[in-house]
Structure formats: structure tokens, C-alpha cells
């Protein structure tokens, strides 16, 4: 066997699990979902094919509005996660000493050690009318009556930011860690103010991390299920809940599949639009060599 054959063989061996993973766990189910979404049930075990399910989606304002609502809240969550996460990431990557860096990183990880459900219940225990915060405020005399801080959109946003912020911090830390401190010093040395250095050097340098962090955060928020359901109020519907309802309580796999395709398509569109609006592209940020 020549060296070239060996190289090719090892390439194939290395790529096989990846290709299988993409093929079996991502492509195939997506094709299946896409196929089911084009199917329309016309009677008992009778199906027709067409875009009726999509037409049904666009004809029903409840679904459209829920999707838009989900997207807006997810965008808000992404922006908040970036605003809160950036200083944290900057501190971990650039300010903290080597030893405390690991500890800080670990602290960011802690929320991930417990399940979504437990995290949501944590918020509930804190924020409910008879919860920790309300009771404390009453006993301190700050407020006269217990207040309900749960069951509204602000709680959902808070809960989601808390859940996804790590996925913003990690890519930011790893890009910022790669930044030579000398770049900052050069920025000051050449006359830049703090703000100039931040805007013209730190942010552009961190752009790959910002872009990948925002994409992950947005996708996670839009695709989350438990947090919006448990923390949300009477009016806060979430698109994944609609998908669940279609699949599980209404046995309507066709509509559920349609919603799934639409969620994927719409979130991808939002990511694309976000990249266009900020003048970024995947090639110049995430895939930058």
C-alpha cells in the first residue's frame, strides 16, 4: 500500500463517523420531517401531497404570531446575553489570573450541571408570590403586599438568558483569549481612548466569537421548550410548544412537521438577516482561518 492510499484510507476512516452523524442523525430526519410536512391527511389512513399544511400555517394568525413572538424574544435574549456575557467573558479571558480563570469558568458551567427543569424550578422558588424575593421584600418593609414576579415575559427572558448565556461566554472567551494584550496596548499607545480601543480593536477581534455565540444563543433560545413553558404566563406561548401540541396532543404529525420545517427555516433566515445587517458573513468570522 502506498503512502497516498494510506492517507486516503485514514481520511475516510476519520470522516466516516462525522458523515454518519450528519447523515443519519441530521439529514435523514430532516428529510423525513420535510416529507411528512408535505403530506396532508384527507381521511382515515388516506393522504394527499401538497403545501396545504404550509397554507394552513400562513392562514392562521395564532401560529404566525407565535413564531414572530418566539423570534423577537429570542433576539432580545441574544442581545441581552451578549451585553451581559461580553464583560464576563472579557474579565475571564483578559483580567482574571490564570487560577481564578478556571474557577470562574467553572462557575459559569454550574447551571448546566442541573437540568432545565431544576433550573426553571429554581427561578420559580425565587420569584413566585410566596417566593424568596417577594417574602424578603415584604419582611424588609420595602413592599406592603407580596408581588407575583413569575408568569410573564420578563421572567421568560430572564430564565432564557440565564440558560443560554454560557453558550455566549464560551466562544467569546476563546476568541478573546487568543487576542494578544499588545494589541490593546498598541491601541492605547497610538492614541486611542478606551472606547476607541473597545470599538475598533476588541469588538472586531472578537467578532468571530460574537457571531458564533449569537447564532448558538439565538438557536437555543428559539428552540427551548421547558423554560418558556414553566416560567411563562397565561399568554406567553412559544413556538416549540405549538410543535409539541401538534405532535403529541393533536396527533397531527403533518402540521407538527410543517412547524418544525418552518421553525428551522425561519431561524436560519433570522441568522442570515442578522449577519447581513451587521455586515458579517460566516466566511469572515466563524470560518476564518
Amino acid at each position: 500500500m502506498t503512502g497516498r492510499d494510506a492517507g486516503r484510507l485514514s481520511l475516510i476512516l476519520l470522516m466516516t463517523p462525522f458523515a454518519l452523524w450528519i447523515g443519519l442523525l441530521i439529514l435523514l430526519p430532516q428529510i423525513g420531517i420535510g416529507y411528512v410536512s408535505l403530506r396532508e391527511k384527507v381521511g382515515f389512513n388516506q393522504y394527499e401531497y401538497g403545501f396545504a399544511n404550509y397554507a394552513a400555517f400562513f392562514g392562521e394568525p395564532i401560529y404566525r404570531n407565535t413564531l414572530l413572538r418566539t423570534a423577537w424574544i429570542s433576539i432580545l435574549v441574544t442581545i441581552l446575553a451578549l451585553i451581559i456575557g461580553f464583560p464576563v467573558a472579557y474579565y475571564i479571558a483578559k483580567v482574571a489570573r490564570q487560577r481564578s480563570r478556571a474557577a470562574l469558568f467553572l462557575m459559569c458551567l454550574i447551571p448546566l450541571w442541573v437540568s432545565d427543569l431544576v433550573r426553571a424550578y429554581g427561578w420559580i422558588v425565587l420569584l413566585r408570590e410566596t417566593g424568596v424575593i417577594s417574602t424578603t421584600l415584604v419582611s424588609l418593609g420595602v413592599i406592603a403586599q407580596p408581588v407575583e414576579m413569575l408568569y410573564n415575559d420578563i421572567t421568560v427572558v430572564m430564565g432564557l438568558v440565564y440558560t443560554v448565556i454560557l453558550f455566549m461566554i464560551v466562544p467569546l472567551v476563546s476568541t478573546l483569549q487568543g487576542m494578544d494584550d499588545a494589541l490593546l496596548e498598541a491601541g492605547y499607545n497610538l492614541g486611542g481612548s478606551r472606547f476607541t480601543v473597545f470599538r475598533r480593536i476588541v469588538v472586531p477581534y472578537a467578532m468571530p466569537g460574537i457571531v458564533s455565540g449569537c447564532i448558538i444563543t439565538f438557536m437555543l433560545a428559539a428552540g427551548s421548550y421547558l423554560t418558556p413553558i414553566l416560567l411563562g404566563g397565561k399568554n406567553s406561548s412559544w413556538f416549540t410548544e405549538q410543535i409539541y401540541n401538534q405532535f403529541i396532543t393533536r396527533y397531527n404529525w403533518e402540521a407538527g412537521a410543517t412547524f418544525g420545517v418552518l421553525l428551522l427555516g425561519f431561524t436560519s433566515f433570522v441568522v442570515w438577516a442578522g449577519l447581513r445587517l451587521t455586515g458579517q458573513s460566516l466566511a469572515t468570522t466563524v470560518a476564518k482561518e
Partner: protein
Amino acid sequence: MRKLGNRLLGATALLLLAAAPAAHAETLRLLTWGSYAPDELVKKFEAENPDIKVEVTFSNNEEMIAKLRATGGTGYDLAQPSHDRIYAAQLEYNIYKPLDLSKINVDQMAPNLVDGVKQNTTIEGQVYAVPHQWGTSGIMANKKEAPDAKSWADLCDAKYKGRTSMRLRRTILLGTAFSMGMNPFDLYADTAAYKDMLDKVTEKLIACKDNLKTYWTGGDDLSALMLSGEVVLSETWDSTAFKLYSQNPDIVFVPPETGALAWIDTFAMPRGGEADDAAYKWINFVIRPENVKVMSASTGSLAAVPNAADLLPDDKKAAVQAAFTQADLDNLKFFANIPPGIEDMEGIALERIKAATN
């Protein structure tokens, strides 16, 4: 590298060794409700039948059907859907197989419930389910705060503004329909009439939204709301109410005046089940009186056996007695079989309610 390879080999060998005895034993894969397979019973059953290993998956009605539909009825050996969820699902998705009643100690079960379930689940002369636990849905009230509550409609009473709750599922649609003087079970057959009924119920529940604190999503959620006093009146499962009664005797289950909605959780066998004998053994095992006690203590519901109430733990027995009179029991409204299509209509109604803002 060599060393690592050896270690991997060693680990694999160990795994194979560990797996070997398990390969001989039969596995009983249960698809059931949380609390319907208490550890104590599972251990006891495995001790009595050393060659059977029990694997439990917790689920609910909707997910049970969705799971079995996705796998074509394979992956589980015994499922426990409610009696009204079997007929249509079987016709449409063919996910169960008929039971061999001669292998089940039917004579140890409560005859009226057995007959009821048989009526609901007989297709082409074959029976697909037998009863296991039964219970009702109704309302739960904190007697101190809401002593007069007696109807589904009280959830929307402005007296209790911001202090009531419900689960946004089909039960509340049906209950509200009854409270408005309609009988949804009679309307099942007439799609147009049912749609009309749902529209009225939807309107009523949207108007009611302001009155609610929140929609509860699970038993833990509901328990916390009631025990903390944030909610004084809620739609509930009776078992949840019975559990709370032992912690706070002010919290009682109230069968609505139009009748509590009664459900029977059953035993049914998925079409692709591979351990039928083990499944029959489990069914006969859990209806033995000493085991019923353990089961009912865990589920909080009544077993489908004669004198089931006597087999409840004392605190639960008291709760049941506090909740039901004989008249209430006579007034129970058993869920009727859901014809195909009904749940889709209900789904739309529920979505409208959830999305509505007023």
C-alpha cells in the same frame, strides 16, 4: 498505545461478561404513568420472578400514543393508556394487540369497571384493555378561602380573581361544557355540534383568562400553588388533591355539581410487545390485595378492585371520604371514547385560548 488497546480490550470483555447473564433474562418494558410502578413493587416482582427484569418508562396518554405510533407498537411490552384513548388510536394506528383474558385474573377486578373498559375497547369482538386504576378530575378548593366552590364555573368567578388555576388541556374544555349545560360526550358523534360547543367553551375560557393566576402544567406545579396559598381554587386530578389533603386538611377535592369526570387507566399490550407472559404476570401481580395497597399509596388513586377504598392508606381513605358522597359517585361522568378528529378540534380551541390576550 499498546497499553491503551489492552485496557480497552479488558474493559470490553468485562462489559460482555456483565451483559451475559442479562441476555438470558426476559425484560418487561413498562410504558406507564409516573408513580404507577413504585420501586417496592418492582423489586418484589423481580424477586418473585428472578428471570424477569422490569424496565419502566414514565409517560402520559398523549406521549404513550405518540411513542407507540412512532415505533408501530414496538419497544414496550405493556402500556397503561386511559380507557377512552384506546379505541380510536387502535383503529387509526393499529398499535395494540388483543388481550388473552384467560391469562388475567379478571375475577379479582371490580366487575363494573371491567365491563365499562370492555365496552370501550372491544374491536371486532376482541378486548384490548382491562382496568387498573381509576380516578376523577374535578376541582380542588382551599375550604378556608373558597368554602362555597362547587362547580367548574367557579374557577371563573370574579370572587377568586387571580387566585384560581387550571391545566390547559381537554379536561377543562369538557368540564366547562358540562357547567354550561352541555354534554360533550353526547356531541362526540356530531362534529358540527361539537365544534359549536367548543366555540362557546373557548369564548368562556378566554373571558376567564383574566381570573386565573396561571395555567398549571404538572402535579408538582399545582401542589406548590395550592400549598403556598397563591391559588385557592383549581381544576385538579383527585389524586393530587388527596395527596395535599394529608398535608393541609383545608384542601379538599370537590366533585363538581355536574359530576366529576372519571377516567380509568388500563393495561393494554403494544402490538410489537415481546414479553407477553411477563406482562400478564405483572397485571396479576399488581391486583393482589397486598400489592394494591402499595400501588394505591403510590398513585393516590383507587384500584379497579372490589372495596378499593379499604385498600387505601388511612390518610387517603379520609380524603376520599371527605370528597365523595354516594350521590357524587353515582354522578360520575366516565370519559367516552374519543372519535378521530375530535382532539384536533380541541387542540385548535386550546391554542386559541392560550394565544388570546384580553
